[in-house]
């Protein structure tokens, strides 16, 4: 029997390259004659370039050329171009210079004389909503494709309420209501009203978005850092308006993205365009300082939340308003946040209002658990506060509010394929030993106070209908062609494992083909929203089923008998007519041609899969299929996080002592990688809530937290020394493999467990603000808040 590939630990096939220095990330590629580009970044948050004099720069020895905004694709409205003459945040790239070395390019940038006309700017979205407040764009602060620009202002009376500490009743572009919130609040035994500020924060993947490109005739060779491979080729082709088949996109390794490099990056256009102009390979090395600007950031929220509870602790009504700090080019987090609030607390009566406000801060993008992580980290402490006020155990409060299988959420009553949030909570209660820990809550050790907390966090975890493509070659090996990116989640290997198991393969006979569009990929999802595990275990399962059918047919044709009587295991097919190796089957499939070798393709595969399949046709037995397994309802995964902290009341420092994360993500494919996702996501959430920080100078609109040491992701000494994880491991019934994604939900769980534990250590007081840095905690403890209640990005 071939080994079991689902549910076992296997070293990813690319690990050897990663730990010997052989793995090539985008900045590790070289090309003969390669030159270096540097960017001129805007020194102002909003401006118009009046004049550029590059004559002195271009006359410098070693300078090859300049690329201006007028030479790159751009679109009307709040849409990002890779270079612009109307920068909308400090650090936006204005132009690029190429030179024989990077230092010369940097010197040339310094030699450029550039004249800016400063324009009004806004870094705090509430400022833009004030009646006479500034806008991020000259033409307004709201944009729609149909109606163009408009100016959204709240009324003086809204702001009189806000400034007085109340919840306003403003007009918002997004609004939905479910049930009858007003009557429900009247029936509530407890109504809590809070204002909430969640900060914006940079993604800061370890690998900055450096990239290199050159042209060979009409063919663009692009070496980029991206989360997704197959889709990035099409994104780049779309941006440059060229035929995708003229791009050879190389993305073997990606040093982290977390949502900031979903289908590549905006700056990946620069070397492509510049190298075409100067006919030299161009390397654009992005420094950490530049990454802070041209990298992406999670949008912050300023919120008003009203939450009603029945006597028994059940949340029965929510009224939620979110103002989102969206940067110059927008983001969708706030919409998701409303859905997630409804899903997590199942109030049955909900009023949601939201507005996305353009601001002159670095661009926003999905960051792991977009919308969900923000709202969960802010609402869970409110739920625990209600538990205290109603005299209910906090664990019970989470459990009784968690949804069951019959949940319907959001304005259109969305359903789920499966949900085991309660099981995750119960498993966590046991592993964390909640009851024993409860006795430690509030205990003092000198100036340190112990606090414990729970965070329950859902997020979307799958999509359907992608294509799978694999080949058994005459060497007998299974080649799984993966259009998904190698972003560090091990999904390029793990999504192939159920398929390989179905075909009875030993793992050593499976080759994963990825990282270079010349190697042929099927149509894939983007690696975002935790879709990949579900989407591509399904797609590969479909392709493997197709391969199995063809193996049996080829075996029956060669040896006689019924195809269904043949069994495949460990590289051989056995049946009534005898035994044959899959190597021989592959040879016979090539000879038979037609669908067996991919000369004839299924009609329902995506148009983007067809040319890739044609590249491989005739080279072996091809398994190729679209995922037609279907399914109803949304695919969501869950993580229940349990944290214990010690808060030092003298210094404001929070030390994480223990953390337990339990996930409901369906079938466990790769336990060790799953644990790493649960911990990694949770710790990123803790960084979001505790160590990273965005600070802007409100007077000049420039960021102060530009580097890792000023906006610090958690390091070894910030994380709990005692970490445990577990999985409910109940297969999703609507899925052939049963696996759901896991990337997103742990972020909210880690962050919320932390914010709840800190509130617990403070005697149940919610700060309702992130990040929980020592100065903010100290100021709160001492009763001298250092910021306005709703201020965003303050020091």
């Amino acid at each position, binding site marked *: 029997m071939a080994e079991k590939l689902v549910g076992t630990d296997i070293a990813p096939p690319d690990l050897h390259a990663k730990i010997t220095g052989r793995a090539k990330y985008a900045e590790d590629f070289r090309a003969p004659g390669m030159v270096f580009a540097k960017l001129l970044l805007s020194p102002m948050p909003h401006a118009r370039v009046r004049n550029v004099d590059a004559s002195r720069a271009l006359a410098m020895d070693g300078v090859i050329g300049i690329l201006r905004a007028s030479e790159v694709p751009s679109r009307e409205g709040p849409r990002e171009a890779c270079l612009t003459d109307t920068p909308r945040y400090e650090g936006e790239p204005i132009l690029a210079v190429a030179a024989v*070395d990077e230092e010369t390019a940097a010197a040339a940038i310094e030699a450029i004389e550039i004249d800016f006309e400063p324009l009004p700017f806004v870094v705090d979205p509430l400022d833009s909503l004030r009646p006479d407040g500034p806008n991020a764009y000259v033409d307004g602060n709201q944009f729609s494709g149909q109606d163009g620009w408009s100016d959204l202002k709240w009324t003086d009376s809204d702001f009189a309420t806000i400034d007085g500490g109340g919840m306003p009743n403003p007009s918002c572009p997004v609004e939905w209501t479910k049930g009858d919130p007003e009557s429900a609040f009247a029936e509530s035994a407890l109504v809590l009203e809070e204002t909430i500020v969640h900060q914006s924060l940079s993604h800061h993947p370890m690998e900055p978005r450096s990239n290199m490109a050159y042209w060979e005739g009409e063919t663009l060779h692009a070496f980029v850092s991206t989360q997704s491979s197959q889709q990035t080729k099409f994104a780049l082709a779309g941006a440059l308006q060229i035929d995708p088949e003229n791009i050879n996109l190389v993305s073997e390794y990606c040093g982290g993205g977390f949502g900031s490099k979903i289908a590549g990056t905006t700056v990946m256009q620069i070397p492509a365009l510049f190298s075409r102009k100067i006919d030299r390979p161009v390397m654009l090395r992005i420094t950490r300082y530049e990454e802070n600007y041209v990298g992406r950031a999670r949008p912050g929220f300023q919120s008003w939340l009203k939450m009603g509870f029945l006597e028994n602790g059940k949340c029965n009504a929510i009224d939620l308003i979110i103002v989102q700090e969206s940067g110059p080019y927008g983001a969708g987090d706030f919409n998701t946040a409303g859905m997630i609030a409804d899903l997590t607390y199942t109030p049955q009566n909900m009023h949601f209002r939201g507005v996305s406000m353009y601001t002159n801060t670095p661009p926003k993008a999905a960051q792991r658990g977009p919308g969900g992580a923000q709202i969960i980290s802010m609402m869970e402490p409110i739920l625990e506060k209600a538990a205290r006020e109603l005299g209910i155990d906090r664990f019970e409060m989470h459990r009784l509010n968690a949804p069951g299988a019959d949940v319907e959420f959001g304005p259109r009553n969305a359903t789920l394929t499966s949900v085991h949030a309660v099981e995750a909570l119960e498993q966590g209660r046991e592993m964390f030993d909640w009851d024993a820990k409860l006795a430690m809550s509030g205990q003092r050790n000198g100036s340190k106070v112990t606090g414990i907390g729970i965070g329950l966090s859902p997020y979307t975890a799958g999509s359907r209908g992608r294509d799978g493509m694999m080949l058994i070659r005459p060497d007998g090996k299974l080649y799984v062609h993966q259009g998904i990116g190698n972003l560090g989640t091990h999904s390029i290997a793990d999504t192939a494992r159920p398929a390989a198991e179905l075909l009875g393969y030993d793992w050593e006979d499976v080759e994963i083909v990825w990282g270079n569009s010349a190697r042929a990929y099927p149509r894939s999802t983007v690696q975002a929203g935790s879709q990949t595990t579900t989407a591509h275990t399904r797609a590969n399962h479909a392709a493997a089923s197709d391969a199995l059918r063809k193996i049996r047919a080829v075996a029956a044709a060669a040896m006689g008998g019924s195809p269904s009587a043949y069994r495949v295991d460990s590289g051989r097919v056995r049946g009534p007519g005898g035994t044959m190796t899959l190597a021989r089957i592959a040879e016979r499939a090539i000879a038979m041609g037609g669908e067996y070798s991919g000369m004839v393709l299924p009609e329902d595969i995506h148009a983007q899969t067809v040319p890739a399949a044609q590249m491989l046709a005739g080279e072996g037995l091809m398994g190729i299929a679209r995922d037609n397994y279907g399914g109803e309802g949304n695919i969501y995964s869950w993580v229940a996080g349990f944290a214990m902290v010690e808060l030092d009341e003298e210094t404001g420092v929070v030390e994480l002592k223990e953390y337990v994360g339990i996930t409901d993500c369906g079938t466990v494919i790769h336990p060790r990688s799953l644990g790493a996702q649960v911990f990694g996501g949770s710790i990123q959430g803790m960084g979001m809530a505790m160590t990273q920080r965005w600070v802007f100078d409100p007077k000049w609109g420039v960021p102060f937290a530009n580097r890792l040491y000023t906006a610090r992701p958690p390091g070894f000494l910030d994380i709990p020394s005692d970490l445990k994880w577990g999985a409910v491991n109940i297969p999703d019934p609507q899925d052939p493999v049963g696996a759901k994604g896991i990337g997103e939900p742990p972020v909210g769980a880690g962050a919320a467990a932390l914010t709840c534990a800190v509130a617990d250590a403070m005697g149940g007081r919610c700060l309702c603000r992130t990040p929980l840095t020592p100065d903010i905690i100290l100021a709160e403890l001492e009763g001298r808040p250092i910021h306005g209640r709703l201020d965003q990005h303050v020091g």
Partner: protein
Amino acid sequence: MDQAESMGVLEEKYTRRTFIKGVIATGATASSAGHLFRGSPLLGAATYQTATERLITLNVNGQERRVDVLPHETLAMTLRYKLGLTGTKLGCDRAECGACTLLVDGVAQYGCSMLTHQVRGRAVTTIEGLEDPDTGELSVVQQAVMEEGAFQCAFCAPGFIMAMTEMIEVNPNPTREEARHALSGNLCRCADYDKILTCAMRAAELARSV
């Protein structure tokens, strides 16, 4: 002081602490250009010269490597862009992340924050130098990582592996807490810290059993 003379002084006197001072003394601006790359004929570029490159010999991974180096060039840049050793990663350019960690005479250093001239006559080991050059056998740290399957995106992996390599020499029998402190100069943005720590402990165990 002329260039040659100052180089001698550099070798003698430079420590990490005096790095910035050193860059200024050799005529470059530390804040903007010290971490940038200046070209190499190896890339086919005609090098633009204002500061003078000097041909020096470095000992990298047990080999003598002759290379033209500018006074203010960092070791990470020399390795990556002149010696083709791209295993040493640049995550921040200035001693914040540890991705460029390598060994100089067995001591873990940030390659972004050492001048190449500082390492003349000293043994530099990078991630590419850990395997046995004859057999390709992995070092104990690398073996431990293969066994425990650590790292996600792994951009930080070379730096962490070099830091672990130093750690097991300095403290062959660490507790998890000691290992955590020993590796705290390196960041992992995927936050795969738990597995990295498990690898460090396994590496120490393997080293003790050799």
